[in-house]
């Protein structure tokens, strides 16, 4: 009798791996590339706003693996067991490795480094020199490729149900991060009947697509609302977004100086990373990519606090001291067809900054453009023929799949497509004047022409 490998987890209490059946996952977990996820904050700089949000990508990845195990156990019981068993290894590995390519501070830092974490996840798994590749290969020659294909959102090699469990409008990744982010931020919005969602999912007419029975509709509704509240209160929190745009502006400034030939006092790891213009898997070794960690970035920012470039040093200091920028709502764009052109607003804001001593005004007039899709807790494809488990959550009504938005029309209030959203961030010193300026421009736009 071999005991389970058990982890304590604040969400699930116990996460247990059956050593006989899934014991190889422990070898995968012990790989350095997976352990690196311990040093990546799940929520980037959200801990600037929510001090408890220090949880990591590793805890999340373990949680996702646990949920994947639960849903596979359920599907194995209620459907064609062999089909599920054959995909079990690949799906559990995908759950554990899906975030392995994340860089420092998760999503928010990707534009700074000009990287795409999905591309790097695939590269790490395919790299024959990586430990995860070796562990996967020991389980099956084709396993690394199967896992990489499941992570690749453009790849359609495997049945829709396998892809949907991992990445869709309602998947194990989203279920775990919503609940985990809710718990660690303390925001408390991520409550929904996740167990029902995982244990009532079924195959559509025994095929490859997935649906839920109508009795799970309320659990789905709860899930959608949980996402809505988490987006409003946590993911798009104005303080967090302010630090994100500050970090990105600082990095952009450093890039401009570096490309202009200025010595930016790069630390050795980033100096190596910056040797290539396009840091993708074709141009950069996996090991060099993985060596860029949060502590590398923080150490670099500390170096910049003493840099001769005044604005770079000031932004670095502001970031480390948590002296963020203040949010200002811009006036509406003069032409709604050009939603990103605010007319007089930006030039006037730059003048205001310069008058107040912010010479490098582009560093202090930061637009945060959030696409509508990132503010939408759930979206579904309207065209019924184009719907699948990947793009639409559906429940079975009279033996036919129906989109949840159609089944519960009251959801329309939270799932209607929001517009792209632009907010500006400026130093707190000029916040009041910027608000006044925005108001003036808004009022003059509303005046009838004379």
């Amino acid at each position, binding site marked *: 009798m071999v005991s389970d490998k058990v982890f304590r987890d604040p969400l699930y209490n116990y996460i247990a791996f059956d050593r006989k059946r899934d014991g190889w996952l422990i070898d995968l977990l012990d790989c350095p590339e997976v352990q690196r996820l311990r040093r990546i904050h799940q929520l980037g700089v959200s801990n600037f706003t929510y001090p408890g949000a220090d949880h990591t990508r590793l805890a999340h990845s373990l949680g996702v693996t646990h949920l994947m195990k639960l849903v596979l156990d359920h599907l194995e019981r209620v459907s064609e067991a062999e089909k599920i068993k054959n995909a079990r290894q690949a799906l559990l590995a995908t759950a554990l490795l899906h975030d392995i390519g994340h860089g420092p501070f998760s999503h928010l830092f990707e534009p700074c480094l000009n990287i795409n974490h999905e591309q790097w996840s695939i590269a790490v798994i395919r790299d024959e020199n990586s430990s995860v590749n070796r562990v996967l290969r020991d389980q099956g020659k084709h396993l690394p490729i199967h896992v990489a294909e499941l992570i690749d959102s453009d790849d359609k090699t495997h049945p829709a149900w396998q892809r949907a469990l991992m990445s869709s409008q309602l998947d194990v990744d989203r279920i775990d991060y919503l609940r985990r982010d809710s718990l660690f931020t303390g925001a408390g919005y991520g409550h929904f009947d996740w167990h029902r969602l995982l244990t009532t999912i079924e195959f559509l007419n025994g095929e490859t697509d997935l649906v839920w029975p109508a009795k799970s509709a309320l659990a789905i509704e709860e899930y959608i609302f949980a996402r809505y509240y988490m987006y409003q209160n946590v993911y798009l929190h104005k303080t967090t977004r302010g630090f994100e745009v500050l970090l990105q502006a600082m990095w952009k400034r450093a890039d401009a100086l570096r490309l202009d030939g200025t010595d930016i006092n790069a630390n050795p790891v980033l100096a190596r990373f910056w040797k290539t213009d396009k840091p993708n898997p074709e141009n950069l070794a996996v090991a060099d990519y993985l060596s860029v960690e949060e502590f590398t970035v923080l150490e670099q920012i500390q170096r910049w606090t003493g840099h001769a470039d005044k604005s770079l040093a000031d932004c670095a200091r502001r970031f480390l001291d948590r002296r963020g920028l203040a949010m200002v709502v811009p006036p509406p764009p003069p032409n*709604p*067809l050009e939603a990103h052109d605010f007319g007089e607003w930006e030039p006037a804001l730059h003048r205001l900054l310069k008058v107040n001593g912010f010479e490098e005004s582009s560093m202090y007039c930061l637009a945060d453009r959030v696409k*509508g899709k990132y503010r939408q807790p759930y*979206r579904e494809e309207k065209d019924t023929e*184009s719907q*699948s488990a990947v793009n639409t959550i559906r429940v079975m009504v009279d033996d036919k799949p129906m989109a949840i938005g159609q089944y519960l029309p009251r959801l329309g209030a939270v799932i209607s*497509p929001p*517009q792209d959203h632009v907010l500006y961030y400026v130093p707190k010193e000029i916040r009041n004047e910027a608000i006044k300026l925005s108001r003036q421009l808004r009022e003059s736009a509303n005046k009838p022409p004379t």
Partner: protein
Amino acid sequence: MNRLQLATLLSWAGDAGLQGRKRLQKVVFFLQEAGCPLDCKYTLHHFGPYSRDVADRCDEMVAARLIDETVEPQNGVTQYAYSLKPATQALLANKQDRNLEPFEELGKRLIDEKLWLLELGSTILLFYSQCPDWEKALNKACAFKKVDPNDWIRKALALAQQVKAQAGN
């Protein structure tokens, strides 16, 4: 694809509007493949190339009351049509995207094209963009759409080739 670009494209459809979400998806895909700078990410879906960027922009402009969406049941399936609201037409009269002008003729032709030809042609073109060999792309598209090569499929291939040729001009 930004608002101005989608508004311009819908203006080419005239008062009748553009019929169907699938048609919109395929027209944008063809235009992009012809070199039109619409910047939408496409993946292979049930009926060929599908872009969430296109669906999102369209839904967002409907919600912003810039586009009219009409819904009609047709053969048991909901049929959507999209046209510009009069106020949006007025805005467009003052502001044009000059980068789209060279694609107007092609766009109008695609908007009026048979839907199945758009579906099949765009699928061939998607496979061609992954591996630039027309015969292989044609065979892959036939396998994907579960159809045998015939005269109609040759027409779809010709459409895909014409569009690709425009990108080279």
